[in-house]
Every structure is written in structure tokens, then in C-alpha cells.
């Protein structure tokens, strides 16, 4: 039943409401697709029995006239989200067979609205990576391949499993998280839509913490409207997260398709970086032309501290991570490696349980927070972070939103950048600024490069103005009419 897995979330919800098929049928089609797609390594845990139980319960609710807004829709869940009774590992060996005794707020909200869980999705270990290669379960393979080639490509990271699963039609949508670009870059690499909402829009409770002042969850989906539907369900105030904003959650889907005429859209000149492939620049120009045709006014703006965003991030994020990851000590949960005393047990547990990239970031974080270096590194980075946020504040005095490329390239080969941490970090050059400033950013597929690989455009909005971001993303989506799909090889 590949027609059922090819539906958009919106079309599937309409089909369920119109009784054209049941959630049990829709879910079974997805369960089968997931089982047939193991070469992609997108799911690290399939939960078919749970999915079918949830689907049958959904069908029963619908029969009683009690269907929620996502009722019966099968979704994939990034392994960073704690799911009660279902192994949650953040794709790290250190969490072993950890089975949470609680459910994250985001997934609680999705189940409240009737969604169905297909399983847990692969990701970079603790969401630290841009290629999915740091996962303890091995990398996800991008369903897309360069035309005429069959070399395995990265789906991006850290939400590579989420993006690959959505692109390969292994779920109708997926949860993801974004600390420096981990929703938007994989979305761009797989021809999918991904939004990182305003910091505080979505509760972080029950999501394994990486860098708490930057982490934010959001959806990856196949259309802008689907992403909007999912975000409305995921978002909302949560007293269990002290940084969760006590604001109304709009019906984001109502903004998709709205006219963007008269909106002022900024194009930051500092985002034209050296060595950017001409195709990325061309798609950006194309996006500018599309928005002009839709009636937007394009304004050149300056974000002068852009080039300092990544180095600032690589102090702030590892510093917070070194503190957050101190909890993995082999005492209360996860795997333990014994030692002759407590310190040796800690050291052996952490040496064995953490992968190379995670250790690297913990060491950097520990170093920049250590006595004598705190002011020079950490405090300096926090001040630069303020400068970056001020840049956006000034730009938003003149414009309603910003248009940029999502990533500096299309998907690259697995293994191509794994030996050079800094080259890997540069993937997030256009996305990381948004996390530092706490703003909403969406990636929309806009076209393909010469090899037929997807390229994405990013729209950045003012804090809590996801509505405008969705309207503009909808306009790009409509103009781009991106219909390409990966040729099935798995």
C-alpha cells in the first residue's frame, strides 16, 4: 500500500476523517515500509505492536466521534525524546538499554492528539554532529543519491533519522531537535521541511539535554502545512520546563497559504560566504525572485557578527554539554563499567560509554569553564552571543523576516568530513545564529543541484512570529513546486 505512505499528513488526516481508510491500515502500510527500509538505518527501534495497538485505539476513538487533531497518524520519534517503557538512548552507548519511566512533554502532546508511534529514530550521539556518523548505531544513509552514482550520502544531522524517514516515506512526520541546525540542515539534505521554533515555544522536558539554552524541538515533515500541523500539537506552555513560554499556541496551519504581499524580507549580505557552491547562491537568488513575484519587498540587511556565531557556539554548546552530561556516571541508569573505586568507575564508564565527538565536546566544555579560562572563553562567547542577537534585533527593525540558504552545500558523502571537526562544524554556518538568538527558522526544499540532490532555503522570523515564517515558507514551497523524490534503492 505505497499510496498510503505517500500521502501528506494533511491528506492522511482527511482520509481518516472521511473513513476512506483506517488508522490500522495506514499504520500497517508504514510498519511494512519501515521493515523494508532497514538499509537506510533510519529507525534504531521499531515498535510495530505498539503502533498497531495505538492505531486500533485511534480507530475506536474515531468511531466514537472523539478523534483528536492528529488521530491515527503514524509518526517517527527521534531517540532524544524519552518514551515511557520504550528504550531511549540518544544513540549513545552510555544509556545502554535505558527505558524511561516517564514520557516527554512533546510526545505526550502528540499522543494526546491521537498520533501513533512507529518507533525511535537514529541521530548523532546526544545530537552532537551534522552527518549522523556519531551515532552508536551507525550512520543513517540518505535515501537520496547523486544522479548516476550510488555512493552513500549523509542525511545530515543530528536529526538524520527523522529527515531520512520522512523523505523515504517511512512516517508521515517526525519529531526532531535543533541545537545548532539539527532540524534544518537534515531537512535541506533530504528535500523535507523542518522548523526550529522560537526558544521556549516547545517544552524541553523529557528530551535528553545537550545545550539547554539552545536546544529546541520541532517537526520534520514533507510539506510546510504538515510541519505547521505538527508544531501546533507539539508546542505549548509546560510548567515542567522553566524556560517554556506561557503564550498561546496559534493554529500555525492557518498561516500557510496566506498572502505575503507587502512583507519586507531581508537578505543578509554576510551569508554570501567564500567557497559557497554557485548552485547554493543561485537557489538563493531564485528564492529572492520568487518572493518578489509574490509581492514581498526585498531589503539587503547586515548581520555583521555572523562569522563569529560558530566559534561562539563551540564554546557555549560544549560548556553546557559538559555540565548536562555530567549526569552519566553509571550510578542511576545506563551502562556501568566497574572500577576499583568510585572515581575509576566514573572514568571507565564515561570513557567506554561516550563516543569520540561527545568526549571531544565534553573536554572542550570542561576546559573553557575551568579556572583561569572562564572569562577568556566562556564569558567572551556569551558577550559575542549578545552581539549576534543584537544584529538580528537591528535587522528586524527594518524587515519582517530573513531569507538565507539553509546549508552551504547539498548532502555530502558519508566519511567525507569525519576526520576534520571544524569542516564538519561549518555545515551549521547559516543555522547556528538562529539558535544563539533564540529565533524561529524553517528550511524549505527549493530545488536540486546538478547532481539532482535537494537544496533548501531558510526563513528566519522574529521571536514568536512563526506565523510569518510559515506564510513565507508556504510561498516558497508553492513557487518552487518541489516534486522530486529519491529513487527507491532500498
Amino acid at each position: 500500500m505505497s499510496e498510503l505512505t505517500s500521502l501528506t499528513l494533511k491528506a492522511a488526516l482527511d482520509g481518516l476523517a472521511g473513513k476512506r481508510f483506517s488508522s490500522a491500515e495506514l499504520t500497517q502500510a508504514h510498519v511494512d515500509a519501515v521493515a523494508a527500509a532497514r538499509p537506510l538505518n533510519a529507525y534504531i527501534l521499531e515498535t510495530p505492536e505498539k503502533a498497531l495497538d495505538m492505531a486500533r485505539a485511534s480507530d475506536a476513538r474515531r468511531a466514537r466521534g472523539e478523534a483528536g487533531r492528529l488521530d491515527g497518524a503514524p509518526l517517527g520519534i527521534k531517540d532524544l525524546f524519552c518514551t515511557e517503557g520504550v528504550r531511549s538512548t540518544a544513540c549513545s552507548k552510555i544509556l545502554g538499554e535505558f527505558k524511561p519511566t516517564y514520557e516527554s512533554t512533546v510526545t505526550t502532546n502528540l499522543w494526546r492528539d491521537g498520533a501513533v508511534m512507529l518507533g525511535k529514530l537514529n541521530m548523532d550521539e546526544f545530537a552532537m554532529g551534522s552527518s549522523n556518523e556519531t551515532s552508536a548505531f551507525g550512520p543513517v544513509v540518505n535515501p537520496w543519491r547523486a544522479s548516476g552514482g550510488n555512493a552513500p550520502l549523509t542525511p545530515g544531522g543530528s536529526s538524520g533519522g527523522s529527515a531520512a524517514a520522512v523523505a523515504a516515506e517511512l512516517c508521515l512526520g517526525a519529531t526532531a531537535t535543533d541545537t545548532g541546525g539539527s532540524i534544518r540542515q537534515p531537512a535541506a539534505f533530504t528535500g523535507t521541511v523542518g522548523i526550529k521554533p522560537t526558544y521556549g515555544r516547545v517544552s524541553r522536558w523529557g528530551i535528553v539535554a545537550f545545550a539547554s539554552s539552545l536546544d529546541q524541538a520541532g517537526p520534520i515533515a514533507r510539506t510546510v502545512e504538515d510541519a505547521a500541523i505538527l508544531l501546533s500539537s507539539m508546542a505549548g506552555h509546560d510548567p515542567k520546563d522553566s524556560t517554556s513560554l506561557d503564550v498561546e499556541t496559534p493554529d500555525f496551519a492557518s498561516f500557510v497559504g496566506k498572502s505575503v504581499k507587502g512583507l519586507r524580507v531581508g537578505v543578509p549580505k554576510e551569508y554570501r560566504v567564500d567557497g559557497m557552491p554557485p548552485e547554493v547562491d543561485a537557489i538563493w537568488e531564485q528564492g529572492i525572485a520568487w518572493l518578489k513575484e509574490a509581492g514581498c519587498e526585498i531589503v539587503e540587511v547586515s548581520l555583521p557578527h555572523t562569522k563569529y556565531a560558530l566559534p561562539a557556539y563551540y564554546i557555549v554548546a560544549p560548556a553546557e554539554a559538559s555540565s548536562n552530561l555530567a549526569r552519566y556516571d553509571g550510578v542511576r541508569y545506563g551502562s556501568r563499567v566497574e572500577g576499583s573505586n568510585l572515581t575509576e568507575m566514573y572514568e571507565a564508564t564515561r570513557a567506554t560509554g561516550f563516543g569520540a565527538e561527545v568526549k571531544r565536546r565534553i573536554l572542550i566544555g570542561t576546559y573553557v569553564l575551568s579556572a583561569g579560562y572562564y572569562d577568556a572563553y566562556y564569558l567572551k562567547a556569551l558577550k559575542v552571543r549578545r552581539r549576534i542577537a543584537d544584529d538580528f534585533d537591528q535587522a528586524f527593525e527594518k524587515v519582517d523576516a530573513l531569507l538565507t540558504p539553509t546549508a552551504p552545500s547539498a548532502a555530502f558523502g558519508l566519511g567525507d568530513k569525519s576526520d576534520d571537526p571544524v569542516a564538519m562544524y561549518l555545515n551549521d554556518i547559516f543555522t547556528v545564529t538562529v539558535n544563539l538568538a533564540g529565533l524561529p527558522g524553517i528550511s524549505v526544499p527549493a530545488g536540486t543541484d546538478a547532481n539532482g540532490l535537494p537544496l533548501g532555503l531558510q526563513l528566519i522570523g522574529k521571536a514568536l512570529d512563526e506565523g510569518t515564517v510559515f506564510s513565507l515558507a508556504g510561498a516558497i514551497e508553492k513557487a518552487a513546486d518541489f516534486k522530486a523524490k529519491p529513487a527507491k534503492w532500498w
Partner: protein
Amino acid sequence: MAIDAATVRKVAKLARIAEPEDKLEALSKELSGILNWIEQLNEVDTDGVEPMTTAVHAKLPMRDDVVTEGGDPERVLANAPKRAGAFFVVPKVVE
């Protein structure tokens, strides 16, 4: 700034990660590469700039000082690598 193997040893100790002696040199090169790249932050004039610790403009909320949940040791201990009764077991820390 370059950091040497001795510094890596010290930082690894602080982070409670056992790093074998023969890996310290390679790690120090890797970390120095990252830190050298970070050095460019010194080009930014940050005099008088207030450090930004959060992107949230709202005030941190206060909640009532009451017990919200608890009294459920089985849930707390469900994932313990080693337990005895209602306790986590760790190597002996007091002689």
C-alpha cells in the same frame, strides 16, 4: 591557544573520562585545532556588552514550594545498573 598533553590529562580528569596516555598527544592536537579556530572571537569588541545567558525574555517563574511527585522508589530505581533494596549500589567510598 594550543593545549598540551598535560593539560588534556588534567581536563580529562576533571571531566571524569579515562583517556589513555597514548591518546593524549593526538587529542591535544585536535583540541588545539578547535581552540585556535575559536580564537577569532578576540576580534570582536565586547567592551561593556552584557553576557547573554538565555534567549528567553520572560522572568524565571516561581512555583509553589510543594511536593509534586515522589514516593515511588521502583520507578526511580527501574534503570539502576546495580541496586540493593531501595538503594543504588556504588563502590565503597568510605573506608
